[in-house]
């Protein structure tokens, strides 16, 4: 197995494209290194992107934020501007693993690992985040929800990797939140995760909303019908109830070692209600 540590995006894509067998991007390695220990794992090349120029920067642009693919989740929590603009995204990223894991793990890795239970992904989808994908044929920008395809599978093509995550500038009077359910307080994988982002009009009525659900299907679910249930409301109890029901309905989970399908559908609704309330408060709603 070859280990490469390129310094430019061009070199990285060229290496990935040239690999004969299976090639893996290495960001924080908190998923990859664990997998490499398994007897079933085979790889021909590992391309470490941490030395690629720009991969470790968070920059504030006219359009919002650009988060390099190798930025560890701990750095997100230390970025005051990002925390103020996207508290839900940052809290999701800072739920991953533990202090030690957060010192290494990245949101890009979380996304590309393509686990349906990835914590930062529903928060990013709710926030309307996009990714910049670098490849042998140049770069393309796609919404976060279009990256994962199925458990462990992404839509990235050979030679491609994510160079940055792009977060928009938050709208006026908007807020986001992410909640997950785990049986343990930490070091656990989401049984259900819910990200909510909403913006209010001057009267406190929800004008736009995005709701995303994790761990209730093979990939993250952008629950548009659920979001519709709260648009035009001041998030009264009836709206919250409708949101909860819609989220339960949008969930299509399985029974597995982490929880029953019935439990997951129910909890998706509960968390959506709770996350929406937090987002509403953050947006300035009362």
């Amino acid at each position, binding site marked *: 197995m070859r280990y490469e540590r390129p310094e430019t995006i061009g070199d990285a894509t060229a290496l990935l494209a040239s690999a004969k067998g299976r090639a893996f991007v290495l960001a924080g390695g908190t998923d990859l290194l664990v997998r490499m220990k398994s007897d079933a794992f085979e790889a021909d090349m590992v391309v470490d992107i941490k030395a690629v120029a720009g991969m470790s920067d968070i920059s504030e642009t006219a359009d919002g934020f650009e988060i390099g693919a190798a930025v560890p989740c701990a750095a997100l929590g230390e970025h005051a501007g990002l925390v103020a603009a996207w508290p839900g995204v940052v809290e999701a990223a800072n739920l991953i693993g533990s202090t030690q894991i957060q010192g290494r793990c990245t949101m890009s890795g979380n996304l590309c690992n393509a686990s349906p239970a990835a914590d930062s992904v529903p928060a990013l989808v709710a926030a309307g985040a996009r990714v910049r994908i670098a490849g042998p044929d140049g770069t393309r920008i796609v919404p976060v929800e279009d990256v994962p395809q199925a458990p462990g599978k992404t839509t990235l093509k050979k030679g491609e990797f994510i160079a940055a995550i792009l977060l928009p500038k938050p709208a006026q009077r908007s807020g986001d939140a992410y909640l997950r359910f785990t*049986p343990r307080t*930490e070091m656990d994988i989401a049984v259900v995760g819910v990200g909510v982002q909403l913006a209010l009009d001057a009267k406190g009525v929800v004008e736009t909303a995005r709701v995303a659900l994790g761990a209730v299907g093979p990939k993250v679910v952008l629950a548009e019908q659920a979001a519709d249930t709260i648009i035009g409301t001041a998030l009264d109890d009836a709206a919250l109830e409708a949101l909860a029901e819609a989220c339960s309905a949008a969930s299509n989970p399985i029974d597995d*070692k982490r929880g029953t399908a019935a439990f997951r559908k129910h909890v998706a609704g509960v968390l959506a209600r709770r996350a929406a309330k937090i987002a509403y408060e953050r947006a300035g709603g009362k």
Partner: protein
Amino acid sequence: MSFDAEFRNQQFKSVGSRPLRPDGIDKVTGRARYGADFNMPGQLVGRVLRSPHAHARIVRIDTSRAEAVKGVKAVVTAADLPDLTNGDAELLHILDNCMARTKALYDGHAVAAVAAIDAKAAREALKLIEIEYEVLPHVVDVDAAAQSDAPLIDETLFTGGVEPKPAKPSNVANRSEFGHGDVDAGFAQADVIVERSFRTEQAHQGYIEPHACVASCNPDGTADMWVCTQGHFVYRQICADLLGLEVSKLRVTSSEIGGGFGGKTHVWAEPVALALSRKAGRPVKLVMSRDEVFRASGPTSATSIDVKIGARKDGTITAAVAHLRYTNGPYPGMWAELGAMTSFACYDLENVKTVGYEVLVNRPKVAAYRAPSAPMAAFAVESAIDELAGKIGMDPVAFRIRNAAKEGTKSSYGPVYGPIGIGPTLEAAQSHPHMSAPLGPNQGRGMACGFWFNFGGQTCTDLNVNADGTVTLAVGTVDVGGSRASLSLIAAEELGIAYDDVKAVVADTATLGYNDMTDGSRGTFSSSMATISAARNAIDVMRHRAALTWDIPVEDVVWEDGHAKARGENYGNLAPLSVKDIAAESGKTGGPIAGHSELVADGAGVSFATHICDVEVDPETGATRIIRYTVIQDAGKAVHPSYVEGQYQGGAAQGIGWALNEEYIYGEDGRLQNPGFLDYRIPVCSDLPMIDTQILEIPNPNHPYGVRGVGETSIVPPLAAIGNAISNAVGVRMSHIPMSPPRIRAALDGGAGS
């Protein structure tokens, strides 16, 4: 020399203090050597191939392609571990569990092993071993396995303990019964009867250090092994028996141990490592992965228990019955029997009956787990007791106090109790501030009691007084919970010297006589008894040396406060001699000074505890937080109170994990779904509150200092205490462990208790 073990009330100087542990620095600096930290020149990497099937006949094994891999030095199968067990069925089961002979009996059962020069070659070889299986129907559920139409795990097994002998084979290996009185008559006197069924899922001990060993067989028939174990003498005996080695020629050294909890009282990898080394002619290191630890080692039983208890309105229990079905894995054990013995041990009952059924299933062979079998029985019984108290309208503590066993009570499993701690722990609970603290919304409080037998057993200790007067203590019980510190305190106490002048080590099997394992809460109890005995023997030697020095009869020399003193008016001018004084002259007075001791430590005092627990349940998600937890337990005498508290807290922490989330989850295919710490959820620090402890000291009359074992009882009450707390918080009686969020949600949605 005869040893007087009788309790003598005395003022202690060292015992009861809290010095730093002697193994602390090594452990916090990473220098301590655990099982995988031993290395030998030329050592090979051992790996085990395991069955992916829950139940399958092994039709053919072809290892030729694996043997041809470059770097592979040996491949072994059951053929390399011939049956030398001479009709000893239990030993044959151990051998079969180490390496499947004709059938793979559970997902993870070892079927072959390789030794190679590196991990890569070993891994490649594993993939090239060809095994043809005939997959058989399997059963993993305890109740399903006990049915007459269940797939048979052992076609030659007929239920023992029933008359007449059954005509058909069965997965129920044995039936055992305990009790006294007439339960039917007792129930006829009852005003209120509670009858309920309970289930508990299979839990693993969850020790952080996986099984690991280095085995080195020499051509001359000698062998060495370094291993992480709770009992190296026992490992030596079993490995020698299984491999046909002479006991004296197999030297076993125990490493530091990163948790065992009963799981390291059984051999798994060790005989395989020896067989690999014997075949390869080189040392072999074998370290289990976490996946292997879960699939192939450890677990405790899954259970299904029916309880019926009746009481009069005044709170007197009139009759109690329990039927307990415990999984054993694929080989017969006595796990249900232990459950049946412990079920009602806390109570003074006129009419009681318990029946245990050992049930074979296609799961790993059950191993001891801290007070094995008692927590599940206590969950069922203490839940029913709580419900009964509620129905009568009595406070649950008062109800238990009314029925508690006491000195002179004939226990439900037979013996008559001496002085015991169940009453005092209950009374301490009743007056504990925790019991009356206010509760918030969605919170509930529960309490429960627990019992464990404790054990003594064979023990051997050497105490050497060095020329500078310091003392080296060699013990044969592996230090699992801080016993080197405790035993040093004991030696210091008995000799009358400072703790810092004693250094305790765990001796290997070649340098000390046989010792039973550190299990049954016996480590400190039995080795402290042997240490006291060895110290007294050394004191005798020192008195003789003093007598020689003074040229007076030894009868006139007494030992007081760490000094030899001449007794009598004639010797007024003889200044007392300290250990250091006597040791300094030892070369001239007869040579080295030592005390040896070998004994069977009888009379391990039984142990009782009462736990109190507050929980908060989120009714919308079923998530439970333990917000307050108190352990009250009788220690007899707490030699090193910090370690006693540690044992209390550790047992409670493990019980909390088991009560809330830990469970083996099998798929339809009989494969374990969660063989790792991600989905086998032991608690993390932030899941636990500070666990408060209260040590009671009701001296054990059979130990010179009053010591009882303390290691196991603390895991007995938690399942029930938490079950009672959750039931009180949510208003539904919980009857299925673990009480995971989906189970609590289901119970709240109307599915009772599970």
